[in-house]
């Protein structure tokens, strides 16, 4: 193999690091997107037998948004293996215990159960907040687009700005707000 062919190979199979902001994202829908990058399915060279998956860093996993009643209704099953060892943990309980667990389990479930799955999962880094180690952040060269727009909450907008915002009408002086 000549030097040119060698570096061509090196560049083709280089692992790119992607960052994904989980804030206000549905973990089960995001899992499909994250899986695609983790397994390298977004690349033209993809093949189940070639190792071309990328690395994904998920941040703000504490801020994920579940659909409908899911926080209260969705249960995560675990069995210790001993008789009577089954347990069902509700999503909100699990999230309180480990804020990275729901997204991790969602990505794990999105992939097919084969021998490669656990190795692919090793390339997924999940951080509950925005603070991630500096050496990890230095590797990141791409951002995965969020599936949903994160709306700005009224109580997060500075009071000054809210006050100065042009209004259509004012409530009368004697109007009592409920």
């Amino acid at each position: 193999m000549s030097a040119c062919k060698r570096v061509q190979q090196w560049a083709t199979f280089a692992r790119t690091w992607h960052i994904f902001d989980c804030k206000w994202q549905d973990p089960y829908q995001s899992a499909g997107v994250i899986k695609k990058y983790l397994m390298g399915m977004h690349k033209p060279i993809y093949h189940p037998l070639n190792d071309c998956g990328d690395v994904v860093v998920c941040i703000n996993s504490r801020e994920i948004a579940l659909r409908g009643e899911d926080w209260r209704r969705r249960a995560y099953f675990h069995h210790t293996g001993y008789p009577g060892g089954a347990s069902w943990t509700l999503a909100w309980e699990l999230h309180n215990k480990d804020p990275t667990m729901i997204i991790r389990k969602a990505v794990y479930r999105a992939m097919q159960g084969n021998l490669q799955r656990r190795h692919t999962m090793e390339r997924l880094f999940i951080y509950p907040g925005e603070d991630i180690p500096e050496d990890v952040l230095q590797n990141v060269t791409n951002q995965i687009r969020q599936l949903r727009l994160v709306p700005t909450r009224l109580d997060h907008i500075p009071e000054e700005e809210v006050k100065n915002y042009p209004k259509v009408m004012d409530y009368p002086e004697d109007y009592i707000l409920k």
Partner: protein
Amino acid sequence: MNKICVIRRFIPLTTKAMKCYPTTVQTQKIHRWVAPTLMELKVREKKLGGKKYSPRNTYLEWNLEAELYAFGKRLNEDFDSDLLLQAFTDRSYVIKEEQKQKDLGIDIKMKDNRELASNGEEFIKNYVQVYLETILPRFPLEGVSGVREHLISEESLAHVSLHLGTKDIILAAEYPVDRFILANAFKAIVGALLQSSGDERAAHFVRDFVIAQLQGKDVNEFWTIDDPYEMLTNILKKEGATLEPRLIGEAGKNTILACYRVGLYVEKKMISSGYGESIKIAKEMGAREALKKIFGTEDHMKPNFQLEGIPKPNTNIRYQIAAS
């Protein structure tokens, strides 16, 4: 009505279930005596001094004249039959035959292929050089001679010769013939063609069988450049341009699988880019890529194996790398 329907529906099912499918897959039966017998045969053969390959030309129905005629026809060339026979006669065969004749007390003169081979070699060398200079007009002479040395090397010529089917026709003292004899016979065939059909036919023969060996190969691989970056800066300096390397991409900086991409810029325009596991290597590969562009030997270059006639040498406008 309903009853009939039910019955009809069940008929094919029952017949299917009645069918007998074989439960095992059929395999080839190799008897238990086959392996020990083959082993015993091998042992006996070894005791007699290994397997003997008898040359095709010792067979009873071997007709050298017909083979030589067919050889020419297969290649669509008109050889002079005496010259072709001479081209296939190796020096070792002549020595062996003379010894035999001396023992028998007769004397028949035989010609070997040394002279034809030297003529042919000279012709191949010159023609390949001129041809490469013509199809690679911007490639430096060092590179051209590297490619030429590869094409006229004993290994390459022996490969061509073997696959033209000379192995059994060659008259040599030993069998199977070694690479030197194969290559020598090929050169002699070119020499014979040169005498029987003239320059142009011989040139086209060399083009079709020797130069076509470049198909699918990278001509840059036959010439090693020690410091491509320095060579590129020197070339650009002559044209009054300065080279500026820029890091234009990186992946996994803190990992062992780090990959960098360096772009080389001249007057804010990218001329090439290279990849590598370190910035130094990426820069060097970028320079190699730029040199390929300057020399007109990129990966997507189309090889030209169809030049007609013998091109005229023209070496004046080349980059003289050795001088710089």
